[in-house]
């Protein structure tokens, strides 16, 4: 459970072991005393009880000694608390935003992402807030925990001294998917961190395909290796053979590629053996996204990626892209269709178009969708470009006649 070797963790753990050790001894003595007395002074062995009901010296001792012990515990506890709170002057600041039910991390250059990438050996100051209800930002490996409170910024800090991934949990109950409000700290060498930061929002999808050994089986030039080529994928369809031998055509889009990479596409591609391993849990989400963007011919960094934005902004926590109903209506097939909303208490049919999507982003409570709780928060910080990108993303998921 100890993921780190920094002083704060040691300080907290020292407090813990001091209290735990003392308590274990006290508990042992209490349990031993009860059992010994019950046996030794059983009425058969000890038929006549002694007659005393106080002993001033003993009472002074067992008031004074516990008092001193708890004062020592208080002192150690306070020292380790100060270590947790004492943010070094040279710390790099990262903004942390909690929302139902995801975290987002923003770096000084405006870059955002769903995981917290930190350089080894450098203190990182976290400025934490929430978009909606109270969340709890918790990284057990660093003993760090502080609430993310709407309308308030709280601070914490951590310093990774060993490379690796460390879980982030939400600890304040925040509704339906509280248990899935997970992320991680990804600790990398300073060089790696610098190059990651320098890449900016757009990532080199091709390099990532190499990094994850995709290109050993999939060619980029159209030739057939162990697996199908990855050339010119956008707009194409794949023929899948299901386990019962039935064949079906599927569009090669973002959802399909992501499913394929984690081994979830529901069948093998016709003409190939089902030999591809699942990469589930092995590829960080933003790397996966970068690879998919590359394969779909999206230029990194240029137009804003609506899909990525929808994930970062937490839209996909409530709106699925596969037709399943979560908290809100699914994005799949939503755009370009009529839907029923509640307008000032009356049910009205509206067309889901660009204007309507923008209205919902600005004022979700005005005309909420029928059959869903009006719980969607407003997104006042979105830029017009970002809103356009989200509209574009919904359009791409929309009814077929409107897509592409």
């Amino acid at each position, binding site marked *: 459970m100890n993921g780190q070797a920094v002083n704060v963790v040691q300080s907290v753990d020292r407090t813990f072991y001091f209290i735990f050790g003392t308590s274990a001894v006290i508990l042992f003595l*209490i349990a031993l005393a009860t059992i010994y007395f*019950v046996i030794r002074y059983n009425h058969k062995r000890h038929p006549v009880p002694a007659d005393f*009901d106080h002993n001033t010296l003993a009472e002074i001792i067992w008031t004074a000694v516990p008092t001193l012990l*708890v004062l020592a515990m*208080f002192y150690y506890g306070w020292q*380790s*608390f100060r270590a947790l709170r004492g943010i070094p002057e040279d710390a790099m600041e990262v903004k942390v935003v909690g929302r139902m039910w995801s975290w987002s991390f923003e770096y000084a250059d405006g870059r955002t992402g769903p995981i917290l990438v930190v350089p080894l050996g450098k203190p990182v100051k976290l400025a934490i807030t929430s978009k909606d209800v109270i969340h709890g930002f918790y990284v057990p490996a660093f*003993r760090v925990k502080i609430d993310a409170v709407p*309308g308030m910024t709280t601070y914490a800090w951590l310093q990774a001294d060993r490379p690796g991934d460390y879980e982030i949990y939400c600890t304040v109950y925040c509704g339906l998917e509280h248990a899935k409000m997970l992320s991680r700290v990804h600790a990398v060498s300073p060089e790696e961190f610098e190059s990651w930061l320098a890449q900016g929002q757009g990532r080199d999808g091709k390099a990532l395909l190499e990094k994850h050994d995709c290109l050993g089986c999939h060619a980029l030039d159209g030739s057939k290796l162990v697996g199908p080529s990855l050339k010119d994928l956008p707009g194409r369809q794949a023929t899948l053979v299901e386990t019962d031998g039935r064949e079906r055509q599927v569009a090669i889009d973002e959802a399909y590629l992501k499913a394929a990479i984690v081994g979830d596409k529901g069948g093998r591609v016709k003409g190939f053996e089902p030999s591809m391993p699942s990469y589930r849990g092995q590829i960080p989400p933003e790397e996966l996204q970068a690879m998919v963007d590359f394969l779909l011919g999206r230029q990194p960094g240029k137009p804003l990626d609506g899909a990525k934005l929808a994930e970062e902004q937490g839209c996909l926590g409530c709106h699925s892209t596969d037709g399943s109903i979560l908290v809100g209506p699914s994005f799949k097939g939503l755009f370009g269709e009529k839907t029923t909303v509640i307008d000032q208490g009356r049910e009205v049919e509206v067309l889901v178009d660009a204007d309507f999507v923008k209205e919902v982003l600005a004022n979700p409570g005005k005309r909420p969708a029928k059959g869903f709780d009006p719980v969607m928060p407003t997104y006042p910080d979105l830029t017009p470009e970002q809103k356009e990108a989200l509209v574009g993303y919904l359009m791409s998921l929309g009814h077929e006649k409107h897509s592409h």
Partner: protein
Amino acid sequence: MSLTGIKAGASPRGFLSSPQDAGGLRSWIFSTDHKRIGLLYLACILTLFAAGVALGLIMRLKLITPGNDLLAPQTYNAVFTVHGVIMIFLVVIPSIPASFGNILLPLHIGAEDVSFPRLNLFSWWLYLTGAVVALVSIFTGSGAPDTGWTFYVPFSERTTTNVSVAVMAVFILGFSSILTGLNFITTIHQLRAPGMTWRRLSLFVWSLYATAWVQVLATPILGITVLLVFAERVLNLGLFDPGRGGDPLLYQHLFWIYSHPAVYIMILPAMGVISDIIPVFARKRIFGYNMIAFSSLTIASVGSLVWAHHMFTSGMSDLAVLVFSFLTFIVAVPSAIKIFNWLSTLYKGSIIVEPPLLFTLGFIWMFSVGGLTGLIQGAAGADIHVHDTYFIVAHFHYVIFGGTGLGMFAAMHFWFPKIFGRMYNRRTAAAAFWIILLGMNVLYFPMFILGLMGMPRRYYDYPAQFAQGQLISTVGSWILAMGLALMFYNLYAGVRRGAAAGPNPWGAATLEWTLPSPPPSGNFAEIPEVEKGPYDFAPDPRHD
């Protein structure tokens, strides 16, 4: 003391038998007899306890493996909320004071009844109303509340589930608790029998007295707080909304200003029960009577000043953390003193191990684990790591179930022959005790480890590294359920066909044991003159 209390021609079933012209349900639900009201509370509390246990078992079953889909996420969130609301507000807070407090307080001080018998009946009706409203909140509207029993804003304002009705239930239950406290305070001040000086009060009565003050002083704050949540939901005032000048942390302060002292409402009466049982089975006066009585009052008063130790990670100021951490450690000392006093009472006694003493020893062990792990949470730096994890869940189940729960079971086994005039099977009771103790530890101990590993509470699903501890914990819940079933079956069998117990089967020295079992409706035929303390035992009657 001789058995002067027996009324000539009194029914052998005492207060349990109704006059011939007024039997049936009405003679119970409109009775102002404190013993009948106490039994009404006991019946309601045990029924709701069974419901709370069932919900707990369902939760444990859902968590037996990661990815288990026995319950949908929203269902799980509602189940842990309802489990908490039932257990805290309907079971544990009223538990010992409302049931055994009502039955025994007038008997212990040599009174006919409480000061305001009709107000006492009204308190029970308020309790019943609150319970019904709480049940209504589960089964009506747009779904059972899903906020946790803490109703934290802003989530509790935004969720569309039936929170408004649930907080009204809490509001009504609060009044029931306040009025019971008021009744007990006046009773203890006004209705003590001649010779029943303050220093001859049983320690159970002292604990009820300290508890009653907390009930009267702290509960109104809860009432106001839940009303504010109601107002926020209905009128959208923005009291806790930072966008409109409100503050979500204000809610947490208000909530814990009641809900931390409420912990002492839960535990102090159990400590009183333990203080009364140990001397009886050690056949020895309680050690440090003054200190135990005084520490109850200290815990009740200092305990009112430690609420914000529930908020070390909330974002409140570091100075506040310093102050509340310090006060938290100070309040630990009187609890430790009580344990040393109980041990010293056993020391050089002449001990008979009967079921009430077994449950009492269980209380001491489990409460010690709960109390000592509380020290880790009082230490500011260490608390940051364990706050809102399974460590906390384990801690408060050790204190509340291992402490208050076992204390209540001890009271049930101790006063059972007095209340029903019959004895349960004592070997079966002992067996049930050991199964319960084993079950509790298998159920809750792994949660300490899970919490230290970082498992947050209120998760309907969890990553695979927590699977082993979760599985063991679920197995523990089955053991515990078997122990509880055996215990309640044994007590039920005792009510139906137990052997006659006689007025004083344990050889205890408090006043209720001078009456026949069950005691007659009006308690004492004439108000007794008290000439000795609650733990001055007659020369060993057990060997007669």
